[in-house]
């Protein structure tokens, strides 16, 4: 399978836990370290003993059959759910007891499987909302329209257009987010997440509903985002061309448990993974 070349490509190296990160990220605090992470819903274990380390500029993939618990992992990492067990370290900080908002301020941003845009607001406002915590003026300054309001809003406006231009969307800044076509909505969610100035970007099925040429473009853009912003990206995706094409490390989840980790080549030849996806061959 063809891999999209990125200037940051480097081999994976083992970490103290059973994880791997790219060699170039060694010596820097990993952006994410999840240890023995688990959550139960009313006695039912949705995710158990999830361990993962992500390097500072790594593109990681999280794959697995439907219902494996992939989105639940994202919800745990962003504290939509508080984990029942285990720890999540972001940038070396323990996120125990933190809320979604606090984890976001630490540098974790995400997109959603079922798109969640601010549908009645303009594209530009959606991006500006991503930049909410970078825009520094308060309620009174906004109401009184003090000079800081004009200055900060101008900076925000320019920055928003700049971010939108990654996906060539600066021309539709005026449009209502809810009126965009599906693919553009997915891209806008990524831009909005980038607006929060993250160090780890979580993409939940970014290519869902896209045609092959849109997907190819998305792959290039994901690499471009990583290279430009020097951030880590973790994505959930069912499109194996995308996953195998751009991810450096891949983690496979089944029934809430990690069943395999490794490079795309290792994962593709792993019998356990093949079994999870295709089912066990009947013993004759």
């Amino acid at each position, binding site marked *: 399978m063809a891999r999209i070349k990125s200037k940051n490509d480097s081999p994976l190296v083992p970490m103290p836990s059973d994880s791997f990160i790219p060699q170039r990220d060694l010596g820097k605090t990993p952006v994410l370290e999840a240890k023995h992470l688990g959550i139960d819903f009313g006695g039912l274990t949705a995710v158990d003993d999830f361990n993962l380390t992500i390097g500072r500029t790594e593109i990681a993939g999280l794959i697995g059959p439907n219902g494996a618990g992939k989105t639940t992992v994202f919800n745990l990492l*962003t504290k*939509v759910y508080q984990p029942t067990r285990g720890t999540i370290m972001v940038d070396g900080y323990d996120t125990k007891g933190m*809320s*979604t*908002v606090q984890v*976001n*301020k630490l540098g974790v*941003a*995400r997109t*959603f499987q079922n798109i*969640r*845009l*601010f*549908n*009645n*607001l*303009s594209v530009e*406002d959606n991006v*500006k*909302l*991503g930049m*909410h*915590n970078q*825009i520094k*003026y*308060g*309620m009174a*300054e*906004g*109401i*009184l*329209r003090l000079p800081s*309001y004009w200055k*900060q*809003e101008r900076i*925000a*406006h320019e920055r928003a257009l700049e971010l939108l231009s990654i996906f060539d969307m600066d*021309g539709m*800044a*005026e449009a*209502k987010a809810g009126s965009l076509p599906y693919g553009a909505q997915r891209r806008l969610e990524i831009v*909005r*997440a980038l*607006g*929060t100035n993250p160090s780890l970007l979580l993409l939940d099925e970014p290519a869902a509903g896209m045609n092959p040429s849109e997907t190819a473009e998305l792959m290039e853009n994901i690499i471009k985002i990583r290279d430009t912003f020097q951030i880590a990206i973790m994505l959930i995706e069912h499109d194996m061309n995308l996953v195998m094409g751009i991810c450096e490390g891949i983690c496979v989840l089944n029934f809430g448990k990690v069943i395999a980790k490794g490079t795309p080549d290792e994962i593709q030849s792993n019998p356990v993974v093949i079994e999870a996806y295709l089912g066990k061959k009947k013993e004759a």
Partner: protein
Amino acid sequence: MKLKSRKLKKTTVIDFATYIGVVLAFIIMNTLKNQGMLTRSLTGQLIPICCYIVMAVSLNLTVGILGELSLGHAGFMSVGAFSGVVAAMSLQTVIPSEPLRLAIALVVGAIFAAIAGTLVGIPVLRLRGDYLAIVTLAFGEIIKELINCLIIGVDETGLHIVFNATGTKSVNDLGLSEAGRVLIKGAQGATGTQTIASFTAGFILIMISLVVILNLVRSRSGRAIMALRDNRIAAESVGINVTKYKLMAFVTSAALAGAAGALYGLNFSNLVATKFDFNTSILVLVFVVLGGLGNIWGSIIAATVLTILPEALRGFDDYRMLIYAIVLILVMLATNNPQMKTLFAKLIPVRRGEKVNG
């Protein structure tokens, strides 16, 4: 960059049209009033209309812009009305200037309503949808009953307040001196209030409310509030503090309602707390919904028309409230039923007002 200038124009044009519309309406009405060309009942309605416009515009902040249903807005109006009346009446000798006293009363009303809004908002804004609606309704009723139990008087030593929870206390329990005056007599409400409210003050209050709300909506905080309305979970994911912005919208809305209440209270020499019951909250909600959620312009028009309408229907006498009810139902059906909508669109080609959506 061409786009940018067009955008600035589009939103500012709507805002400025609103301001200019209100200024023009004020100038016209004020001239007509001074020329004596208005009917007595319409002149008497001018200040209440201003109050209801501010009520509608401020409730629109909670219901249209924040997206949370509140059925207790009149409660905040009530808090503002009675605190404003007490402030204005007790300062009667200290501050002889009526406009200044009125301004202070409005500020006091706004502050007390904001405090009430904070006390109500912190616990209840965690609830969602219809549950929030019923709890705000409950708070409105509680505020009404609490004010019904208040007996307040003033003399040279300051304010005297008695809380008459058991119905056994009376004005005599205030312990006022000879020079003292009773301001609020429990269930009989505020009596003998000096009516210092003016149409000009009402106009200024409307303008202030518009500046606060329109500028808020176009600022960082206002965006965050609208983001909560559109998608709370996404808003949290980009680091927006849900409680902070919900409370900001709710308290701002309560404060403006308080100022409106103070103006209303100082327009009548007698005022009872039951005036601000559930039905008043509903009335204001009707203005907001008919005017269009998030549509500030619409709230102003709806508040004005629907305050005048029952008066205008006076010719129909006993039937006027019945007609009002039928009109209300028909308008809701006409604006929300798909078939009726297309039918009406064919009959009256009206361009819908622009919503405040940034």
